[in-house]
């Protein structure tokens, strides 16, 4: 068995490396491939063909894959009769076309091989479990990438994936506070706003600032930060404000805390729209032209890292202290847990990730305006947390993808006036989607209070333990 694993693992890695190398070389050597296709060099005699070929190479140099493939198809279609398209050349062309998919399969095989080797080398159950999770995560990312390559970056599916990932982070960060620490805060939108604005303000290119801050003579900030730094800064600024706000507010209990944080979110929104801060925040005008992302992989990786950090936190001693506070404050204090310190910590960390989520949301939307960050945004995220299950990270993640897919995509048909034959389907018109959607949400809230996951997590153990252990409900 052990020998089988060794050979299997090494074999997989070798295949993976071969796949990666071949797909990468096929990607980089497009020019050589085109030369080989055109063995007689007819290109030089045919100016139209030359122009078409140059267009392919130009878009390839720009790293715009969609455009390259389009241009390549056109080139082959127009001048295919003059080229050698049989045998190895056809294979090379296919290799170029399917490059991303081949390389992602390579990455996946590499992960599986590495996981196999890891389990043979250590043999510990924990390592085996970690290896399985790692393979699962890589598989997920590969799927996202392949889907994106096949469906195109602007398809509905990819849009849902991008927005869903960002909402997943927002929901998990809110769950950390509401579901795990039992602090019922409704200030999420305010901290998202801080994050989104911080990110946007620092990543607008200097040359565009004149146009964006047109009423404020280009604004005060005259430099541009790298994206990663700006995202982290967005989280830090949100966390800093959370610390300040938490000092007085966290002494309040349950619904008073909810209303006070809601109030602070409104104050933050008003401050960011204040004309006097215009040179920094652009007043009530929108911020645009900052750096955004194209591929769904960016939000997936960023969100993945953040959620991983949150999971690690939840499983640490601090996380256990948070849960103790949630279950019984007095008992937790009696056990020696420093209440103000832990509450403040949970609040600050949750708001840090809300800020990061806000920054990602800004990137997704490509523009930011303070007036959009209303209390209704907080409510939406709260409903996601409830749908997924208070106190379940995986529940929040699943619920956000379902929520976004349902509201942006699956229920879209409800918004379109539909005529079947001569029969006009009643009720269907703009806005009906959200009505149906909110009815569904209400049904879940009323009859399915624990949400999708309750307070359990999606894990490998779930399948083994299924049915053996039934956990009782938790009173919040």
């Amino acid at each position: 068995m052990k020998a089988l694993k060794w050979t299997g693992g090494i074999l997989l890695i070798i295949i993976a490396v071969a796949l990666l190398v071949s797909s990468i070389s096929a990607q980089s050597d497009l020019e050589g491939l085109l030369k080989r296709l055109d063995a007689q060099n007819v290109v030089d005699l045919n100016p139209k063909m030359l122009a078409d070929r140059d267009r392919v190479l130009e878009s390839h140099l720009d790293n715009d894959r969609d455009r390259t493939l389009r241009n390549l198809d056109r080139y082959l279609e127009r001048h295919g009769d003059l080229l050698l398209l049989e045998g190895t050349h056809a294979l090379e062309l296919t290799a170029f076309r399917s490059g991303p998919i081949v390389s992602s399969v390579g990455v996946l095989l590499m992960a599986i091989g590495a996981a196999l080797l890891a389990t043979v080398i250590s043999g510990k159950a924990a390592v085996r479990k970690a290896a399985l999770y790692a393979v699962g995560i890589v598989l997920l990312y590969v799927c996202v990438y392949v889907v994106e390559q096949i469906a195109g970056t602007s398809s509905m599916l990819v849009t849902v994936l991008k927005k869903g990932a960002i909402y997943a982070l927002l929901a998990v960060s809110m769950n950390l506070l509401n579901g795990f620490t039992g602090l019922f805060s409704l200030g999420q939108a305010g901290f998202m706003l801080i994050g989104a604005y911080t990110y946007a303000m620092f990543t607008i290119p200097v040359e565009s600032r004149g146009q964006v801050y047109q009423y404020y003579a280009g604004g005060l900030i005259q430099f541009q930060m790298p994206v990663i730094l700006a995202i982290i800064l967005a989280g830090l600024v949100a966390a800093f404000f959370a610390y300040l706000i938490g000092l007085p507010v966290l002494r309040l209990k349950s619904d008073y805390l909810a209303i006070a944080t809601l109030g602070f979110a409104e104050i933050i929104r008003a401050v960011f729209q204040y004309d006097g801060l215009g040179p920094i925040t652009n007043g009530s005008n929108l911020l645009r032209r900052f750096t955004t992302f194209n591929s769904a992989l960016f939000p997936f990786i960023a969100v993945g890292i953040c959620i991983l950090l949150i999971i690690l936190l939840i499983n640490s001693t601090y996380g256990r202290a948070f849960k103790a506070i949630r279950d019984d404050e007095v008992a937790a204090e009696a056990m020696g847990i420093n209440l103000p310190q832990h509450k403040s910590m949970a609040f600050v960390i949750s708001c840090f990730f809300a800020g990061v989520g806000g920054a990602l949301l800004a990137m997704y939307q490509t523009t930011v305006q303070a007036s959009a960050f209303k209390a209704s945004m907080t409510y939406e995220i709260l409903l996601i947390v409830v749908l997924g299950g208070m106190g379940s990270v995986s529940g929040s993640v699943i619920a956000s993808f379902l929520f976004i897919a349902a509201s942006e995509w699956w229920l879209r048909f409800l918004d379109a006036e539909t005529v079947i034959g001569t029969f006009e389907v009643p009720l269907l018109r703009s806005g009906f989607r959200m009505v149906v959607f909110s009815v569904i949400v209400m049904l879940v809230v009323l009859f399915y209070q624990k949400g999708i996951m309750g307070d359990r997590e999606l894990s490998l153990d779930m399948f083994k333990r299924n049915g053996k252990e039934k956990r009782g409900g938790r009173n919040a």
Partner: protein
Amino acid sequence: MQEFITANLPYLLGGISVGGQYALIAVGYTMVYGILRLINFAHGDIFTVAGFFMVYLNATMPVAVSLPLTILLIIALGFSVERVAYKPLRNAPRMSVMISAIGVSYLLQNLMWYVTGGLAKQYPTIPWISSSITIYTATTKMVTLVTPILTIVLVALLVQLINHTKIGMAMRAVSKDFETARLMGIKIDRVISATFIIGSALAGIGSILYFSNYTAVTPTAGAMPGLKAFVAAVFGGIGSIPGAVIGAFIIGISENIIKAVGLTTFSDAFTFALLIVVLIFKPTGLFGEAVNEKV
């Protein structure tokens, strides 16, 4: 002096008027909180729905019919919201009920958006109430004068109801101790329904007075006044009706003073700042009773 009054009187009158309207909403919040310990997030939306009832009813019938009908319909709505969304959760954790309230608010807003197509609807002019009058040097609508008077009359009636009738006594008992009241044979559900009926009726009246001041209603028009009325209820001490009224007047007037000073952007923020200050220094509000939480 003359100039000072001329410049500031309109704001003061506006503040008193808005304060009265907040008071009518705040009473609904404070009564529901007093009995169910629930922030009824849907209350502000019920207030907005009342505005739309008035718009649609007034298009087909005379004011004398549409006005009472609006209030009847809004009572029916408040009653059914309680029956459908809050009653099934009577024994659930408090947070579940609050989330259900947020869900109802979400549903009502989406429903209003659907019915109106997201457009602002012109609010009808109600005869007499919408006519202009001149007080000293300030020209204003009749509603500005009517609101505070009507508010005080209605609240006085309500206080009488609570202090001197059987259902009022039941309400006080339930808000003191939910479980014991139930053991004493009080029909909890009837008391809660009565609370929602009174609250919705007052919100309906408040809505008519509030929107008379404006030209149009939008699906989210009631969210802010609703929140501010809640702040007023907390400010006055939640559960206390006179407290809610006084809180509402203070908030209405100070909000308009902020506008008069020229900081309109901060008029909403000020209200919440006031709330936070109150919560920190006197968590039970001006007239609230201190409750010791048992372990």
